[in-house]
């Protein structure tokens, strides 16, 4: 008899169940079986009521996103043996940050709503329409190549830590799409996009947790694209908000003493003219001071001028 693995599967039918529960199944384990093969085995041989989405079985259609043992995956791209390297059983839940329709099927509206908000198409020069296609060099395409390979599976949203606590956040997939359009060599609305993306819920609300980079099955690396959008915004000198000030003053303070001044950075980020913001931080600052967490004299490294020399050389080379 073949070896078996336990699949612990989230079940919920809102029409009949008062609350969700887990149901265990024994799945025969052979060869390079994927977690999706396991689910198909359950549905076909053991329990036809188990509900989930799937289609291509080759990580193309993006329909089989689920949470497996705590992190989101495309189950057609994940071998059972791979899971068992780190866990004793396979625990499957619907994607997080989405409403559950039934069992492992979630309502993807939230994904499309966020996607809609970033104008997910190329806005090119409509006045000078070329006679043939709008051409793009391989080098220009390379800039947006990874960001273009999103299959809209929602796996990154499911693991996004900012979205989990702030439903207003545009989230990794939509922001990666925004980068793909803004960084396209044929785009004519880059500045408008960057301004829009600096508003609440945009690029400055990403917590830089790398969950989306880790889980994206197509190597879109959404967070990296968000960091590039930030860089583009800083370069264009378009916005002055807490996010941009934080990055600019961080670099400046590091070059100033070699050691980031943790007293001055929050003040410079909030802005000395923002009295309300400064007052808001005061109690925490005081608490820290009383515990000896605010050194009176800021330390510095010996060769600060060396850092500035290096920064100068980097600047010159641009």
């Amino acid at each position, binding site marked *: 008899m073949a070896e078996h693995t336990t699949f612990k599967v989230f079940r919920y039918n809102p029409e009949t169940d008062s609350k969700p529960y887990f149901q265990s199944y024994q799945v025969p384990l052979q060869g390079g079986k994927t977690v999706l093969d396991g689910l198909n085995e359950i549905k076909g041989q053991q329990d036809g009521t188990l509900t989930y989405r799937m289609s291509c079985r080759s990580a193309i259609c993006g329909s089989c996103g689920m949470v497996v043992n705590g992190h989101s995956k495309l189950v057609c791209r994940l071998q059972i043996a791979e899971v068992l390297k780190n866990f004793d059983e396979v625990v499957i839940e619907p994607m997080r940050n989405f409403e559950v329709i039934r069992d492992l099927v979630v309502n993807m509206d939230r994904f499309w709503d966020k996607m809609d908000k970033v104008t997910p198409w190329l806005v090119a020069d409509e006045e000078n329409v070329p006679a043939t296609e709008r051409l793009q060099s391989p080098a220009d395409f390379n800039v947006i190549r990874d960001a273009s390979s999103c299959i809209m599976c929602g796996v990154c949203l499911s693991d996004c*830590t900012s979205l989990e606590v702030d439903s207003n956040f545009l989230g990794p997939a939509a922001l990666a799409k925004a980068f793909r359009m803004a960084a396209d060599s044929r785009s004519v609305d880059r500045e408008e996009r960057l301004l829009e993306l600096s508003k609440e819920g945009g690029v400055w609300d990403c*917590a830089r947790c*790398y969950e989306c980079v880790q889980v994206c099955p197509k190597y879109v690396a959404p967070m990296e694209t968000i960091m590039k959008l930030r860089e583009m915004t800083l370069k264009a000198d378009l916005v002055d908000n*807490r996010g941009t000030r934080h990055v600019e003053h961080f670099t400046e303070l*590091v070059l100033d003493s070699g*050691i980031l001044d943790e007293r001055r950075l929050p003040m410079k*980020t909030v802005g000395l003219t923002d009295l309300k913001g400064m007052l808001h931080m005061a109690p925490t600052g005081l608490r820290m001071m009383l515990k000896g*967490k605010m050194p009176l004299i800021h330390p510095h490294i010996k060769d600060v001028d060396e850092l500035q020399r290096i920064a100068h050389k980097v600047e010159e080379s641009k």
Partner: protein
Amino acid sequence: MKYAFFPGCVAKQTCPELYHSTKKVAQALNIDLVELENAACSGAGVVSQQNEALSDALNARTFAMAEKQALPIMTICSTCQGAFCRANKRLRQEPYRDKINGYLSGNGKNEGGYKGTTKIKHFLWALVEDLGIEELKKRVKRPLRNLKVASFYGCHLLRPSDALGFDNPDNPTSLEKVIDALGAEPVDYDGRTRCCGFPILLENENASMAMVSKHTLEAKEKGSDCMVTPCPLCHLNLDVQQPNAEKIARQKIGLPVLHLPQLVGLALGFSEHEMGLHKHIVPTGRVVEKAIGS
């Protein structure tokens, strides 16, 4: 065991208890730390948002300092470790490293540049990999028997795993192994691999505080007496900001958060004062009482 020690900015300023407890614990474990006193901030993934080449050049300068002494670097911050590992991955590629070395050269201070050979280890990894869990167990003088400890890794020590490459990001085990070796009981909960919210503290405070309350309350609900973290930035949000998180959550939390070396130090026999536990915002008295019954 000898390392080029990179304490990072936070251990030198807002978490001095981390710096001092590390030094004491390292000495007790015969870990020789040669501090990189002239190294610059790791950039924490922030400088790179504006200028990746500059960030990498400053870090290549630091890596070269350790390389010259033929020592691996030891960090005590998940964020520094992450920034260093990501930079080191880029700097292992030859044409790129040459370009960055070009920025370093010029006045003889960084002779030869960085050759790409420096190994970088967080204190946690050094304990598990170099000292070894069995050896750590042997050094424990006062097992923390009654203590239930929730680990909190910090994003940048786990992800992206192709740059970090130590723990499995879906199911890391190194902190749990150390907690277990110290005689305490690790608590399993979802939040241990999630984000503390520190990077958006000033940009989106409500979201940041929601992360703090979510993870601390979950850890408490699972019976934890305290959290332990290898990252001082997580500590700043989970401990220093905890009163603010309580306000937004309208709920008392009161979960002490220890730095990793502090927990190790308690088991090695150091007093709470020697480990700087009085420097925390959330009182740690109950933990000490439970752990060592003083």
